């Protein structure tokens, strides 16, 4: 076909360069800001040891959230994999539903739950849980750990457990000496994602009054207009992140224990005592992580239902969806091309995969700042060149869409890469030998093969993007409202009941999608393979 007659190597090179630039360029624009002289605000933070204190808080937060998520996520995955009990399938679905809750919605909803149920507040909002923030992050993000461990345990441990049992080890010993150590890589990898999301959020810690590095970034950037201070604080956060990723790799020691065969674990019936404990544990987790907050939101929504029209719910929702669809479309297009190119590379596959993942691990505030600065300079560049008065990218969704693409492209990319990798490379070679160049192969082989994963990718992206707050709030143009920004605004004005209305929309839609995925047998988060 005529349109495919372009030199292969050039296309690949050009596309790769474009995609890389897309991801790397915005970040590089921020670098000069790191070398500007310090401001009085920054000086105070440093001199009074406040910056240091916030750094320690950040580390403490990360550590505690990690532990809490592992406690909730691993235990529930263990229970669900090893044991059979009535209502198990219902519990299995309920355990994934907390992912329908944006963490900030969780924070706002719980602040009133704690207010009316002081005893609950006393347990979860003390020093231990860092005013409640650890509780919120943990209770709504543990499903990452739950899902990763659930599939890992089911597929990979049968023989090891059997071996342990035949060697005379009790269940407890088996757990401590075999199951937990072997699961460690899966546990660590998924906890890392919990940490990424924790560090990308600024609203929860702001609301509960915990001083972290995010606070410095938001205060200096949004409060004082000091982008350079924000950039410098971002460096600290990035450093923390690098240490965390590094530690994870060391702790994991690059191992990933694979199962021996395709056999899956046969769940067994638990003893009487164990049954009670199982139901107790799961009921508590499920109540706290989904049932209670959802109930509270429903109550609020009904109480304030008169507000539905006045807050222009329809307008906000459609704006949210438009932005969503634009971003998802771009992500799918770029990542399908990117994954196809990388799939055919003989060398450097890992390098490009890492670049794609970078966007996801960079805390959203930092990414937002970088894209903001980049778009700004792009605006000035365009004006200097064309002198068009009204053309201001900052007034459009451009910056936001760019940031959303950079942040979430890895979701699609890793899914597509994995899907393509499952197919024998000879299939692609065959297409080449049958007179098709890269573009031809892409349209006639790759795209059709990626149709099925795309459905899955679309849903995951939808859920992630509709919940997204940090990028949306910081990069949106004039008069731009989405469900997430309006929730933040109303909650900030202490109108939590009204905020429940758009919250319910998000949680409702996401819940339906998660249930759809769960019942379809797919893992909601297929991310563990990325690192």
């Amino acid at each position: 076909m005529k349109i495919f007659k372009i030199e292969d190597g050039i296309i690949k090179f050009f596309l790769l360069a474009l995609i890389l630039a897309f991801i790397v360029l915005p970040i590089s624009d921020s670098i000069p800001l790191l070398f500007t002289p310090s401001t009085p605000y920054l000086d105070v933070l440093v001199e009074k040891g406040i910056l240091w204190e916030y750094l320690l808080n950040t580390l403490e937060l990360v550590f505690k959230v990690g532990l809490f998520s592992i406690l909730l996520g691993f235990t529930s995955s263990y229970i669900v994999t090893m044991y059979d009990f009535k209502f198990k399938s219902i519990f299995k679905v309920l355990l994934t539903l907390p992912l329908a809750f944006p963490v900030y919605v969780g924070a706002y909803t719980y602040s009133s739950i704690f207010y009316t149920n002081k005893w609950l507040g006393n347990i979860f909002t003390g020093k231990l849980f860092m005013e409640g923030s650890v509780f919120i992050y943990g209770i709504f993000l543990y499903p990452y750990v739950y899902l990763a461990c659930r599939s890992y345990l089911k597929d990979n441990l049968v023989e090891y457990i059997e071996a342990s049992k035949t060697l005379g080890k009790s269940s407890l010993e088996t757990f401590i000496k075999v199951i937990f150590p072997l699961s460690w890589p899966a546990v660590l990898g998924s906890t890392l994602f919990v940490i990424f999301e924790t560090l990308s959020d600024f609203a929860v810690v702001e609301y509960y009054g915990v001083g972290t590095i995010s606070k410095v970034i938001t205060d200096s950037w949004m409060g004082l207009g000091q982008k350079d201070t924000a950039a410098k604080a971002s460096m600290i956060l990035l450093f923390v992140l690098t240490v965390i990723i590094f530690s994870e790799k060391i702790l994991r020691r690059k191992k990933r224990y694979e199962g021996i065969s395709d056999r899956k674990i046969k769940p067994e019936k638990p003893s009487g005592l164990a049954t009670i404990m199982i139901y107790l544990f799961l009921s508590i987790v499920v109540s706290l992580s989904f049932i209670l907050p959802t109930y509270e939101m429903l109550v609020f929504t009904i109480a304030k239902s008169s507000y539905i029209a006045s807050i222009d719910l329809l307008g906000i929702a459609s704006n949210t969806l438009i932005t969503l669809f634009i971003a998802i479309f771009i992500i799918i297009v770029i990542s399908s091309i990117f994954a196809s190119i990388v799939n055919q590379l003989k060398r450097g596959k890992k390098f490009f995969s890492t670049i794609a993942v970078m966007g996801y691990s960079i805390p959203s505030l930092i990414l937002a700042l970088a894209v903001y600065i980049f778009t700004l300079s792009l605006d000035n560049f365009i004006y200097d060149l064309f002198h068009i008065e009204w053309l201001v990218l900052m007034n459009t969704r451009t910056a936001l869409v760019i940031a959303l693409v950079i942040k979430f492209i890895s979701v699609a990319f890793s899914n597509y890469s994995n899907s393509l990798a499952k197919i024998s490379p000879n299939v692609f070679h065959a297409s080449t030998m049958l007179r098709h160049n890269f573009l031809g192969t892409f349209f006639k082989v790759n795209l059709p093969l990626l149709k099925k994963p795309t459905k899955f990718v679309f849903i995951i992206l939808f859920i992630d993007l509709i919940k997204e707050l940090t990028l949306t709030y910081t990069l949106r143009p004039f008069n731009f409202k989405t469900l997430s920004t309006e929730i933040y605004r109303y909650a900030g004005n202490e109108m939590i009941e009204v905020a429940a209305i758009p919250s319910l929309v998000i949680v409702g839609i996401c819940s339906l999608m998660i249930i759809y995925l769960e019942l379809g047998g797919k893992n909601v988060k297929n991310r563990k393979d990325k690192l």
Partner: protein
Amino acid sequence: MLKIEKINFKYGDKKVLNDFSMEVREGERVALKGSSGCGKSTLLKVIAGLEKPYSGKLFFDGKDVTTLSPHKREFGYVFQDFALFPHLSVKNNILFGISGYKSSERKVLLKKYTEMLHIDSLLDHYPNELSGGQKQRVAIARTLITSPKIILMDEVFSALDEGLKEKVRLEILEVLKELKITTILVTHDSRDAEVLCDKIIEMYPI
């Protein structure tokens, strides 16, 4: 027709082909025979253009095609795992390489090659429904329909049952003879080489 001059190839640090040269005349059926690790599959891929040697040259009909993109070479390739497109029916798998031809031509060619390989009853099936032998025929038909100048075959009989192999060898031989098509077959099996080829090149690992 095909001239290979001093091809050198390395996988990482390991040298797999050392100054390899050979010639193939038009209409010849050549077997590259050897045990695993001798570089025969690699050589086939170099000829196809799926791998690039770090030195040496490849000439086809006098033209230097060493760096020519594989999709421009007009060579056919049948893979060891047959590599049928899972999302396409048998019919569309076979038509894949001639999608640019006129509709009437495609019809004619499809009939010709599916009859030749006795797979005309399988047209609406999908690859996952086929047996190993059937997949092989589809793969071969898919390649032959594009009238390749040379057909490259990589261990195409190894996936078949022992009992079936001899019968299939003879059938394929018939097809290759009828089309008078230049063939390079890679195999570790002496019998494959003996039945199908006039010339056998023995290769040894370095």
